[in-house]
């Protein structure tokens, strides 16, 4: 036989559990796992990604969609707006850490590659490429670096609400053509 006291305790315990079970049962999305990711269509390259991440070296890096690149001689992601001249002196380059590597392919085309170990995710090149170029550079949270914080610090302060949770089986968001933008 259960004593009254025990019974009351069980009742209390059940009463505590019930609201949480109910909340859990009501949740809408039931996929197994989610990761944080930047929607490049929303990002305005404000530069906060560089410093907001909990990691000392931000998990956000620039990635290059080669297939969308114009291989421009005067890459607007590579060169500063106020450059003195088009040469590879640091004051002419946009990237503060010289993370963009430039390689001659054939006249007049150059291939641009991001050195991810040097990239700090500041988004300056992305801004330049989006403003004057094809928009082939964009920022992504690199999932193998990201710690998957419960609340991404970047999502918390991102002015454009570009950082959202994505299903773990689609961990990256690439750009879409302008006409199918939702």
């Amino acid at each position, binding site marked *: 036989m259960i004593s009254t006291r025990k019974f009351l305790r069980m009742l209390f315990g059940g009463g*505590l559990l019930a609201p949480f079970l109910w909340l859990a049962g009501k949740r809408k999305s039931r996929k197994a796992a989610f990761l944080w990711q930047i929607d490049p269509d929303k990002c305005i390259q404000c530069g906060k990604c560089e410093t907001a991440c909990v990691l000392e070296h931000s998990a956000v890096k620039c990635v290059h969609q*080669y297939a969308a690149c*114009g291989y421009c001689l005067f890459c607007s992601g590579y060169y500063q707006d106020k450059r003195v001249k088009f040469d590879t002196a640091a004051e002419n380059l946009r990237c503060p850490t010289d993370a963009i590597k430039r390689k001659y392919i054939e006249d007049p085309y150059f291939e641009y590659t991001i050195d991810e170990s040097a990239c700090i995710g500041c988004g300056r090149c992305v801004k330049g490429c989006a403003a004057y170029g094809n928009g082939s550079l964009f920022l992504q949270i690199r999932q193998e670096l990201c710690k998957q914080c419960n609340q991404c610090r970047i999502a918390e302060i991102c002015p454009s609400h570009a950082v959202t949770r994505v299903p773990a089986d689609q961990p990256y968001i690439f750009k879409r053509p302008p006409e199918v933008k939702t």
Partner: protein
Amino acid sequence: MIPFLAQARFPAPEFENYTVPQLQLETLVRDPIAWRVSALLIFLVVSGLCFYRWRSSKVMRLLALAGVVIFGFIFTACPCPVGMFQNLLAAFVHGQPLGYGLLLLFAIPLAAALLFGRLFCAGACPLGAVQELLLWKAIRIPVPVDRALRFIPIAIFLFVAVAVVAGMAFPLCSLDPYLPLFLWSCTIPTVAFLVLGLFVSRPFCRYVCPYGVLLRLFSLVSWKAPSVTAQTCITCRLCEQGCPNGAILPPESAPTSEEQARGVRRLSRLIAVVPLALCLGGILGWIAAPVISSTHPAVRLLADIEAHRTGDAVEAFEASGTPLAQLQNEVAQTRHVFDWGMPLAGVLLAGAVMAELIAQARRRRESSSYTIDQSLCYCCGRCYAACPLNRKRETRKGTAT
């Protein structure tokens, strides 16, 4: 993943002998949540064995060390069960994704509390484990102050709940002072809490942690209860002094008739002020509502737009092409949530305060020994070490071998 151009100002060149490289990003992302959940389960079982079988404060200290290493540094602390009620609320109110793993992470420590008390706090919680290891010279906090400060976690819990329902980013996650530690960095709150933790036992657990509120509730009715000693208590009070968390309850004798009469009077007075307290809580919440809602990003954005201020958020809003009416609508909704939620939270907080006062005013069950109040016990085992009866047995064993 088919690449698309956002804009095509320049056509893709045609190369003679160069193939355009493909953008390759790892699609197979390791999902550590299953590991985390299994580790938590195993750790809780071990904690239970250590706390109820081994009964040694040294073993519990080792357990805390293991907890810091495993859950703090290997799993980098976040996401941990402490913040998980935010996810649950966000999933329910906003349909935010919530995986099974996180749900289990939230539920397992509570289930353990329902069965064995706050085993989770012993070491499986990286925040608690750090504080456990740090305590160096415990300052005794006067009981009334301690009791008053213990209402802060309830207030934080309620505030965080309202904020999450209102669509703010999880406020608790930015409140956690220990997370930077596990990422090998440091902030001012981290240092402050670490230094405080040298002299005050578990400052975060006792006076901040909102998950502790749930654990406290759940462990109120836990199935198995620890006892300071297996032998008959000699009421030496040493365990009460040994517990840095104020979790030891003194013996309760049968009341004299005078005491009883005084108790009844106090109780009736307390019950009489309950409605007053609830009203006061509601009013305080109502006063706080506009202050707090003005920190919501959408509210701030609208204020910026109306005042023609510029900034990243305004720029992003204009770039997104969202109609202003939609933002106004969102702001109105946010304000609505705060206007109702904060007074409600105030009432609930006042209710919790009154419930605690009443619980303390009423007589406990008679008992002739010092007992452990499980709802406040972090399973550190210090009282086991403090009890002379336990010590005697140890020395006897020591001399025998």
